[in-house]
């Protein structure tokens, strides 16, 4: 994938461009002395105008003029060095090799291993089963791609294949055990196999997520559910009240937590 004809073309265009300028260099040979003489001449002309228009007095004019002369004298000491000619072909070869090798080397470190078909994304979306198949094919080549494993688990949950999704999440968990989103999805998949109850491993996963990010609204929501399932109503109320406190008023999930909280509060009253 890394070596495509477009990239080769880009490297060739770049190399030809530089080669052209090695054979026909941009002409600019203004020396420091030429520039300093021109600037100080102009400063002297400005000084004379100021003097003639009465902005400065004679003594100041003399002093300023001698300053300009001494400044220029101190600056005029460069002697142009002799130019050494080069062999353009040798340098062009070096440049072409540098551009080609370095660019492909850097790109190989940065490029994605698989490029999604963006054209397809713009026209027709893949069906869920096609997505799962594509992910499974990709994972044969890249068995430790965390994002792909997590995505596969999510897609399998979407098709109701909970057992497979737990396997996928388990593999993703082995690659990265500290991803909050994975911990919540993984716990939810296990709970789905336990009639929606969070205990055992699903509870451990939520507790781990809570220890990693005690301020996350989603984590607090799930921690509340775990507490409620363990009949720790005060704990559940505490987590949900904290989640509501952290949530902006306009948050779309606010109603869900408010509803859960009122249910638990009612239970507590009863």
């Amino acid at each position: 994938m890394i070596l495509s004809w477009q990239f080769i073309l880009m490297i060739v265009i770049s190399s030809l461009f530089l080669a052209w300028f090695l054979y026909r260099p941009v002409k600019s040979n203004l020396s420091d002395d030429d520039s300093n003489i021109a600037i100080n001449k102009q400063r002297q002309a400005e000084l004379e105008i100021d003097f003639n228009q009465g902005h400065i007095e004679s003594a100041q004019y003399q002093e300023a003029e001698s300053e300009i002369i001494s400044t220029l004298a101190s600056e005029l000491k460069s002697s142009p060095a002799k130019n050494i000619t080069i062999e353009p072909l040798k340098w062009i070869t070096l440049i072409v090799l540098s551009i080609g090798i370095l660019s492909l080397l850097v790109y190989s470190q940065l490029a994605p291993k698989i490029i999604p078909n963006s054209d397809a994304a713009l026209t027709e979306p893949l069906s869920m089963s096609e997505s799962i198949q594509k992910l499974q094919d990709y994972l044969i080549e890249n068995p430790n791609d965390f994002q792909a494993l997590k995505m596969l688990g999510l897609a399998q949950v979407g098709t109701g294949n909970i057992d497979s999704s737990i396997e996928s999440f388990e593999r993703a968990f082995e690659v990265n055990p500290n991803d909050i989103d994975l911990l919540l999805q993984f716990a939810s998949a296990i709970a789905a196999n336990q009639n929606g109850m969070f205990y055992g491993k699903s509870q451990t996963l939520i507790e781990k997520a809570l220890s990693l990010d005690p301020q996350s609204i989603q984590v607090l929501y799930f921690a509340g559910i775990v507490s409620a399932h363990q009949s720790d109503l005060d704990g559940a109320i505490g987590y949900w009240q904290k989640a509501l406190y952290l949530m902006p008023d306009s948050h779309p999930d606010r109603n869900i937590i408010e509803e859960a909280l009122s249910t638990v509060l009612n239970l507590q009253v009863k």
Partner: protein
Amino acid sequence: MLIEIGHFSLVLALIFSVLLMILPSIGLYQNKSALAQLTKPLVWAQGFWIAVSFIILMNAFLANDFSVKYVADNSNTQLPILFKASAVWGAHEGSLLLWVFVLSVWTIAVSIFSKRIPSNLLNLILIVLGAISFGFLLFLLFTSNPFERILIPPLEGRELNPLLQDFGLAVHPPMLYMGYVGLAVPFAFVIAALIRGKLDSSWLRWTRPWALISWAFLTVGITLGSWWAYYELGWGGWWFWDPVENASFMPWLVATALVHSLSVSEKRGAFRQWTVLLAIGGFSLSLLGAFLVRSGVLTSVHAFATDPTRGLFILLFLFIVIGGSLILFTWRSHLLQKSNQFALLSRETGLLINNILLITALFTVLLGTLYPLILDTLNLGKISVGAPYFNAVFVPIMIPGVLALAIFPFVRWKKDSVSRLTSLLRLNWIGIALLILLARVVMTDNIYVLIAIGLFIWVAFHVIILVSKRIRTKSKFSFAFLGMIIAHLGIAVFTLGATVTTQLGIEKDIKMDVGESQNIAGYDFVFNGVKPHTKDNYSGFIGDISVYSDAKQIAQLKPEKRYYQSGMPMTEASIDPSLTRDLYVALGESLEGDAWSVRIYYKPLVRWIWLGGLMIALGAFFAAIDRRYFVRAKS
């Protein structure tokens, strides 16, 4: 594949920046002019590939290519086309690409418009700019890749931050970046001159126009940001001393000092060491600003990108730039010892006072910005430093600065006498005193407003005298002179606008029922009710308020309350603008029945704030195109 081409273009740009650092350096060191003169083609090629990647990213936004993570995170199909284009710089990765793109634009501009600069100096300047590009391209490619793909693209993207869905925000960041990044040019001039060990007239002459242009862009960027905050945030304020605002204001203060210091160095050969330090300081503060915003150490309305890895990279870059520059400065400082003498009363002294005041103001802002961070880092508690601190310490420092800017253009270079100056201006001072007294009698007794009116009259009167003196002596009106008077008048206009609107503005946060009327500053605001409203990618409510003056309707204001997909509520103020006052209305919350809470502001002279800012920028542009920057040298 287009996205991969964009990504690969950035990689090629990185390689070109490496070649730009190496090949011409070999050419300069070994006197191989064919290699040394590769700087320009290398700069053009690097700029071309950066432009290609920028265009490809913009195309991805316009084509709703949600296979690109950055596009999926910051745009959706419902977003209006203007905001799809501006969403390119709506979050971290894209704004960094914009930064790199702007840097390449500046570098190309230097390569094209610097025919009068000695070729060896120019080559070295372009090499230094290439090194800066290299740092930012590394940062972009290795920590903030805008071309990252999503394995399974979503059908619909997320929401661009609603605060950024606004014309002001579409143009504010590019302008600000032109200023921020533009400060890299005077920095590159200084570093190139230090490396060569030739801090001569050429270097001083050619640094100034670039410093002026970047300062002008920075001024426009800050002014646009202030204007946007005023009408978009719904609070009616124009400056909040937000840490990120301060991050852009600090380089502005240094750049202001730099353009003044450069004028002394250029004209009189004085302050050379100081000028070098200011050029280094200006760019370093730009990088510090980038660090504060990108690292996540600050939390503000601007902190849309927070990542410790990115912060660490910029911090490292900052250390290399500041540390390397200061080491170079120490090594070459003996070349900067020579300075022409000047008397206590001279224009040089005036510009020195200007510099001292600006740098003192800079340190007060820096202290107020960093102090809460330092306390937090040392676990000494969380504090917030806000407007009361900044107003108390910043304003008193700037008042003598405004007084001085009117007087010192009359003072001669090198040496002047108090008697000449007073005999020239004393009658005018009597006139100014009488005008201030008149303002006290007929306008206001608010002491702050009187001080501002006094400063305005002081500056405006002196500008008139300066112009009339030039006309009398039949002197030429150079662009440099015109630029100076426009910018100084801009300071006076800004000072008056800021003080009057702060001191005499009226703010009311009230409950209004349908048909109810409120009188504020002589205007009757009649609340006609609120209707549901849906447009493009949001829905919400639109209010209807009629404004009457002397029983005659003068405006119909339609403030909005918008709810975007993310559920984030946005207040869109409705403003009846004029040069003398703004009538500003924002919808609050729906209350019982048909009543709503409404914020009504009367803002006298508020437009003068931005008018002043634009005048300062215009003055800088004028000064940058002065005739003496087009002097032709023959080889």
